[in-house]
């Protein structure tokens, strides 16, 4: 990846992603945290595009930016008296130390390893290949994933159903 555009795009998108992630940790307001999380998700989608993963980038925007963050907003709105504070527990310092240690270890491994074998050309368009793989080699996990989504959806509906609404009212 030598062309200047990709390099500039990588650095800008990395700065956006990591900066927004840091703001999620730093901001005091939970709604603001969700907004910064959305920015971070969009930054990751941009990084996918620089990795020539077009299908995954679109999926990221659809699922994470479109669906998951809206779920977060709904959960915040549905718990009004729980407060909008985004502060830390008394475990803040151990969490910070552990996160720094894990990040330092992963970063050290990433820098220290010799990645000279890892150079290949980028992909063309990937959607058709992914689709063929999903319906050919990975068809069983694909079907299981659909059942998992169904179970999760039914479970979420049954869990948050108000008492006495629908069914026989014994929930």
């Amino acid at each position: 990846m030598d062309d200047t555009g990709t390099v500039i795009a990588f650095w800008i998108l990395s700065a956006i992603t990591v900066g927004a992630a840091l703001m999620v940790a730093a901001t005091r307001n939970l709604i603001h945290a969700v907004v910064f999380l959305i920015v971070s998700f969009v930054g990751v989608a941009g990084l996918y595009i620089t990795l020539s993963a077009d299908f995954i980038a679109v999926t990221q925007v659809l699922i994470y930016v479109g669906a998951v963050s809206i779920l977060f907003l709904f959960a915040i709105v549905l718990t009004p008296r729980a407060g909008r504070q985004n502060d830390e527990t008394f475990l803040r310092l151990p969490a910070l130390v552990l996160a720094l240690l894990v990040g330092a270890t992963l970063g050290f491994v990433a820098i220290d390893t010799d990645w000279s074998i890892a150079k290949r050309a980028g992909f063309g368009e990937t959607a058709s290949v992914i689709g063929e793989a999903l319906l050919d080699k990975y068809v069983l996990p694909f079907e299981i994933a659909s059942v998992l989504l169904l179970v999760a959806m039914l479970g979420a509906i049954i869990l948050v159903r108000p008492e006495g609404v629908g069914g026989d009212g014994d929930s």
Partner: protein
Amino acid sequence: MTIHLEHYLLVGAVLFAIGLYLALGKRNFVGVLMGIEMMFNAVNLTFISFSRFVESPNPLSGHVFVVFVITVSAAEAATALALAVLVYRVRETIDVDRIDLLKW
């Protein structure tokens, strides 16, 4: 200045560390879930970058794996947020410090 695999891996490591800090340190349950989703994103980014840079007989299996990870994480987010709403209904709080019924 060229971009190599380790640059993406570093971004993934930083994202994972921030997500871990959020998941362990935040007081609000929704904040904890944000950290978990951020860790999912970091792992997905690492999958995609390995798939992009490393030669393999199945070049796009990393992408397929990421599709499954996104599916499972979406299901997880829906179920966990439903649980958060349920806990809020019973306890009037989703502060993980104050959900302590199982604590001696």
